[in-house]
């Protein structure tokens, strides 16, 4: 008889304890990040989109040979006056790239002509857009700006959050990253 009532008491206590747990979680700030409006900062050594700087590149073909997925290609012309190679175009196919950093490690220039950024918004809307092509005249080709996919879907009055992945200077043509 007594055990019946102590049982009821214990069960009620347990149920109330459960309610306390959920109530405590109810008032915790949510872990969710409201993605296009808020963005997480990725780690410093994050391997995001590749950036390329045509004016630094010496067209040595090292990155093309190092690339395991064969996504980099370039064409250069011998400059008879200086005896050096002049870059004609440089292409990275982001559909093939596996973000391994081998091209950046092998790159002999200082600062690196090809390097990873912390940009992770690499969505493209067509197969052709995946191939980004740099030439000395167009150091920042269309399709390699950060947040370009999301900006299509913004309506009036909406703003994207600041992009923490890419320091402002890497979006320009000056190479800064030295990892």
């Amino acid at each position, binding site marked *: 008889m007594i055990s019946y009532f102590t049982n009821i008491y214990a069960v009620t206590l347990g*149920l109330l304890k*459960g*309610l306390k*747990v*959920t*109530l*405590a*979680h*109810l*008032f*915790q*700030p*949510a*872990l*969710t*990040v*409201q993605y296009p409006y808020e963005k*997480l900062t990725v780690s410093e050594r994050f391997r995001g989109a590749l950036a390329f700087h045509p004016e630094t590149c010496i067209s040595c073909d090292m990155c093309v040979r190092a690339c395991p997925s064969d996504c980099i290609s370039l064409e250069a012309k011998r400059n008879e006056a200086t005896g050096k190679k002049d870059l004609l175009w440089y292409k990275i196919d982001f559909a093939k790239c596996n973000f391994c950093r081998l091209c950046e490690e092998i790159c002999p220039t200082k600062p690196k002509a090809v390097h990873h950024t912390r940009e992770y918004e690499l969505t493209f809307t067509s197969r052709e857009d995946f191939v980004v092509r740099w030439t000395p005249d167009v150091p920042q080709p269309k399709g390699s700006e950060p947040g370009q996919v999301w900006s299509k879907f913004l309506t009036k009055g909406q703003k994207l959050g600041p992009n923490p992945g890419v320091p402002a200077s890497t979006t320009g043509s000056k190479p800064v990253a030295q990892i």
Partner: protein
Amino acid sequence: MAKGPWTVLGPAVGSQTADAIKRRYLMSFVMLGCIFGPIFAVVVGVQLKVGEIGPLLGRAMDAFSVFAAQRGAPVWVVPAASFLVPCLILAVLFNLAPVVVIWLELKIAAHIQVRMGPMWVGRFHGILQPVADGLKLMLKEDIVPAEADRWIHYLAPVVVLVPAFVAYAPVSFGPRLVGIDLDTGTLFVMAVSGLSTLGLLMAGWASQNKYSALGGLRAAAQTVSYEIPRVLSLLPVVMWAGTLSLSGIARAQEGLWMGILPKWFIFYPGIGLIAYVIYFICTVAETNRTPFDIAEAESELVSGFNTEYSGMKFALFFLAEYAYVFLGAAVGTDLFFGGGSAPWNFLRFIPSYVWFIAKTLGQVFLIILVRWTYPRIRVDRLMEFCWKFLVPWSLVNVALAGALILWRAR
């Protein structure tokens, strides 16, 4: 993280900076202030100007009848209007209350799981998400299984929904705010809401699906059993109040005990609390919600009786469930929390419908919290809990209430 009033609310979360948490807390306080400040101001202002809605409606009705008599309108216009206006108000409430409850459910469920829930539709914390969901369900294709019993399959959602609507009629939302003030209001609500079981059984049978059939049968067994302690738990209240009318019971709870505690039935020593706990458990079971959701147990029965329903017909089932949640809380407010009356006299300036909605939403919050806290119980344990625990204790409660009444009358 800097110390501040926000630190007592919860621990800092690893992936967020201290500033972000602080900003979010401050924003939520500002938001709450922005919502409740104007509401409070409007309520106080309206209260000083016009007073309660019920008497106001009565005065408007009088003015309308005088106007109709002067203009020589037919005799039936005034009675027809006096029928139609409460019907319209009830219809609006019936469609609005589930929307609010669904939004609360989405947000509370999300925040219990440390998520945010809908944040986009309607711009402010996804306030229009239930409306968007409803529109989506309305526009979806209506699929009837080839082997289904077509007519019963069509009728089942209606049979579930209509009693939910009808059961709102005698609920008293404050003084003179009643659809129809039935003398047998409590009995009417219990009897009519019990009819929905038939719809669940029809849905389970007509779908020609083993999961639906099992779900329908389970729903029938469960709701029929839990109806008994639910009605028995209301008996002490009815005995004390001496009436079955919901507005009469709400009126019987006015006054204070020792000048402190309001004379609500939940505060009646022991018996009132036991009665309310049994009523609350049975309400959760009647609405087939989680600790007792064996009728639509996702992990066993796909979705139970509504497995074969989609689009608008599923929306009707959904609407009926949330209408019953609000109805259960509203009846609980009338029976145990004194209806729309303010607990203390100095709070009288807040109108009764605000009190009523606050008390009801408090209970709705509890029902939602219970759903997202406890796991589902097994079928046999569910039946055992009802017949071996709730029914005997509600009978004991009735006996105790009778003894108390006899002792007081001596």
